[in-house]
C-alpha cells in the first residue's frame, strides 16, 4: 500500500522539512507532543516521497488530522471547526480527484498515469478538484477562511510549522501533479489563467488585511497567504523559469516565516503580549532579536541585498518573459504594499516607545529561540550574496520533471537572458558604501548628545505628559482605509459567506431532525404512505 520513491523534488521539500523541524526542536514550548510531531513528520515524508497517489493521500490526511490535534491544544472551538471542515474538505476533493484519475487511467502509480486517452472534460474536472485541494492547503481565497485563525491560535511553535512547511505541501502537490503527472499539454489555459489571477488577488487582499491587523501572528498569517499566493500565480505560468522562481520563493519563504514566527514567538514568550498596541520599544532590550527580524522583513519585502530579492527577481523575470504585464503589475502592487506590513511588524514590536510599563522587567530571551532564527538569517544572507548557489538543485528538479533548466551562470549571478544580476556585487557595493559612510559619520559622532529621557522629543514645542501614548503601533495603516479601493478590500470578508453556508446546513439539519422524532403512529403512517406511493408508481 505504501510505495515510495526518492525524487529531486521530494528531496528539496523534505530537506526543508528536516531543517525546520530540527531547528524548531530547540525552541522551548509547553505544548510539545512528541507523538503528534513525529506523526506529522512521518506524514510529510510520506507526501514528499510517495510514488503513488494513495500514499500521497494517506500522508495528506495524516498531516491534516495530526495538525488538528496539535492546534486543538490552544485554539478555540470555532477555529478548530473551520480548520477541520476546510482541510477534510480539501482532502476529500483530493480523494475525489484520485478516484477520477483511477477511473480514467486505471492506476494510482505516478509513472503509469497517461492522460493522452482521457477526454478533456474529465481532465478539467480532475484539475479543478485538485486545485481546490491545493487552494485550501495554501489558503488561496476564498478558501483561506481557516488559515488566519489557525495560524494565530495554534501554539507559537506550531504556527511556524504551519506557515513554513504545511502551506508548502500545497505548492509541492501543485508541482508534482501539474508539472509531472498531468503535464501542461492536457491542461486548459483558461483554468491556469484563473488560477494565476486568484493567486495574485489573494496576495493583494491578504496584504491589505495584514496591514490592518493588530496582532503579530495574524499579520504573519496573512503575509503567509500573500506569499503563497505569489507562488501559485507564478506556478500557473507553467514554464521552466517560473518553476525555478516558485521553487526559489518556496525556499525563501520557508526560512523567512520560520525566522519571523519564532522571532515573534520569542517576544510573546517573554512579554506575554501579542498585540502591537501593547508592545513596542523593545529594540534596545532585545537588539539581536531586532536585527534578526530586520533580516526577516527585508527578505519578506523582497529587498536587495538579501535572499528575498533573489526570488522576487525571478518571479518578475518569469512574468516578464511571458509578457504577463498586467499580472506583473498586480504582483508589484501587492509586493509594494507589503512594505507597510513589514514596517508595522518591526515598528509595532521594537521601535517607538514602550507601551507597557513592565517592559523593563521582561526576562531575557532564552538562547534556544535563536537557533531557528539564526539558521534562517544565515540562509537568507547567503542566498542574497550568492544567489546562484542553490540553482543547480532546482535544475536537477527541473530535469526530473522534464523541463529544460534555464538558469545558472555561476554562484554570484542569478538570472536568465532577459535580465540578471550579481548578488555579490550588490551586497558588496552596499556593504562598502555603508561602511564608508559609517566611518565618515563616526568621525562626527563625538558631537552628539543623548536625550534626557524618553519624553525628550520634539513634540510641537511642548513636553508630552507621561501618560500620553507615544507608540503609533495602534494606528499604523489606518490611512489606508480612507482610500476608496483599499477600503473596499478591507470592508469585505468571506466570513459572511461561510457563515451563511454554515447556517444553511444548520437549518437543514434542524428540519431533518424533526423527522427523526416522529411518534410511532406517525411512523406507521409514513410507512403506509410510502408503500402506497411506491405501489402507485409501480402500477403506473
Amino acid at each position: 500500500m505504501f510505495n515510495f520513491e526518492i525524487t529531486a523534488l521530494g528531496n528539496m521539500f523534505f530537506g526543508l522539512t528536516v531543517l525546520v523541524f530540527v531547528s524548531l526542536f530547540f525552541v522551548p514550548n509547553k505544548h510539545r507532543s512528541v507523538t503528534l510531531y513525529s506523526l506529522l513528520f512521518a506524514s510529510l515524508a510520506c507526501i514528499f516521497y510517495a510514488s503513488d497517489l494513495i500514499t500521497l493521500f494517506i500522508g495528506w490526511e495524516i498531516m491534516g488530522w495530526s495538525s488538528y490535534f496539535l492546534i486543538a491544544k490552544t485554539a478555540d472551538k470555532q477555529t478548530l471547526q473551520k480548520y477541520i471542515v476546510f482541510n477534510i474538505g480539501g482532502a476529500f476533493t483530493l480523494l475525489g480527484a484520485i478516484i477520477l484519475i483511477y477511473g480514467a487511467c486505471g492506476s494510482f502509480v505516478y509513472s503509469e498515469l497517461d492522460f493522452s486517452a482521457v477526454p478533456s472534460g474529465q481532465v478539467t474536472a480532475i484539475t479543478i478538484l485538485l486545485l481546490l485541494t491545493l487552494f485550501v492547503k495554501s489558503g488561496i481565497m476564498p478558501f483561506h477562511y481557516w488559515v488566519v485563525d489557525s495560524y494565530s491560535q495554534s501554539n507559537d511553535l506550531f504556527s511556524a510549522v504551519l506557515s513554513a512547511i504545511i502551506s508548502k505541501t500545497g505548492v509541492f502537490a501543485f508541482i508534482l501533479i501539474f508539472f509531472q503527472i498531468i503535464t501542461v499539454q492536457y491542461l486548459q489555459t483558461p483554468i491556469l489563467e484563473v488560477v494565476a489571477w486568484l493567486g495574485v488577488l489573494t496576495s493583494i487582499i491578504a496584504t491589505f488585511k495584514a496591514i490592518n491587523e493588530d496582532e503579530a501572528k495574524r499579520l504573519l498569517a496573512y503575509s503567509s497567504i500573500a506569499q503563497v499566493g505569489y507562488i501559485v500565480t507564478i506556478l500557473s505560468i507553467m514554464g521552466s523559469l517560473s518553476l525555478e522562481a516558485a521553487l526559489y520563493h518556496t525556499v525563501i519563504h520557508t526560512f523567512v516565516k520560520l525566522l519571523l514566527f519564532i522571532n515573534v514567538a520569542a517576544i510573546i514568550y517573554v512579554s506575554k503580549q501579542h498585540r502591537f498596541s501593547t508592545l513596542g520599544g523593545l529594540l534596545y532590550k532585545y537588539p539581536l532579536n531586532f536585527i534578526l527580524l530586520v533580516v526577516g522583513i527585508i527578505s519578506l519585502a523582497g529587498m536587495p541585498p538579501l535572499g528575498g530579492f533573489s526570488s522576487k527577481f525571478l518571479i518578475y523575470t518569469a512574468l516578464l518573459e511571458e509578457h504577463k504585464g498586467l499580472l506583473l503589475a498586480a504582483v508589484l502592487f501587492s509586493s509594494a504594499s507589503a512594505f507597510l506590513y513589514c514596517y508595522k511588524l518591526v515598528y509595532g514590536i521594537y521601535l517607538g516607545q514602550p507601551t507597557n510599563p513592565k517592559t523593563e522587567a521582561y526576562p531575557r530571551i532564552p538562547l534556544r529561540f535563536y537557533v531557528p532564527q539564526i539558521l534562517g538569517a544565515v540562509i537568507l544572507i547567503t542566498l542574497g550574496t550568492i544567489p546562484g548557489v542553490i540553482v543547480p538543485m532546482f535544475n536537477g528538479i527541473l530535469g526530473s520533471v522534464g523541463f529544460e533548466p534555464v538558469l545558472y551562470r555561476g554562484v554570484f549571478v542569478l538570472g536568465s537572458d532577459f535580465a540578471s544580476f550579481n548578488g555579490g556585487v550588490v551586497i558588496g557595493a552596499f556593504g562598502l558604501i555603508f561602511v564608508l559612510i559609517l566611518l565618515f559619520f563616526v568621525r562626527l559622532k563625538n558631537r552628539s548628545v543623548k536625550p534626557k529621557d524618553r519624553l525628550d522629543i520634539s513634540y510641537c514645542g511642548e513636553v508630552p505628559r507621561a501618560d500620553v501614548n507615544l507608540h503609533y503601533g495602534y494606528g499604523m495603516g489606518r490611512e489606508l482605509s480612507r482610500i476608496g479601493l483599499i477600503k473596499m478590500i478591507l470592508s469585505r470578508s468571506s466570513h459572511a459567506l461561510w457563515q451563511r453556508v454554515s447556517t444553511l446546513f444548520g437549518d437543514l439539519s434542524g428540519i431533518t431532525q424533526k423527522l427523526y422524532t416522529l411518534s410511532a403512529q406517525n411512523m406507521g403512517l409514513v410507512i403506509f404512505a410510502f408503500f402506497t406511493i411506491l405501489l402507485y408508481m409501480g402500477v403506473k
Partner: protein
Amino acid sequence: MLETLNQTTFLHTVVAIGSFTIFTIGLVGVLSKKNLFKIFLSLSIVESSLFLFFIGSHFEVGKAAPIVADGIKLFDGHMVDPVPQAMILTTIVIGVAVLALSLTFVVNYYRLSGNIDIDKMDELGEVQ
C-alpha cells in the same frame, strides 16, 4: 346458486375481500387510535387478516385437512397443502408472543408514567 358458492375461486374471492376488509379495519385502528392497547390490538387484527388470507387462499373445495392420522402416511392430492397450515400455526404462536410482550411493556409503562396515550409519550427526542 349453491354450486357457485361452493366453487374454489368464489371462495377465494370472498376470503380475499374479507381479509382485505379486516386488514383495512386494523390499519385504520393502528393509525387513528391513541390508546396503546388499541393500537396493539389493531396490529393483531392486521396480522390476523393476513393469516386468514393465506389459509383461505389455500383452501380447496373437496380436500381434507392435512392431518396425519391413523393409516395415512403421506400427504397427497386428497389433502390441501399442509405447508401454509404449518406456517400459520407458527406465525400465530409468534404473534401471540409478540402481543404478550408488547402488552407487558404497555402495562409497565402505564405503571411508571400513568399515561397510555401515544401522543403523550414524550420521553424521547432531541434534547434542547
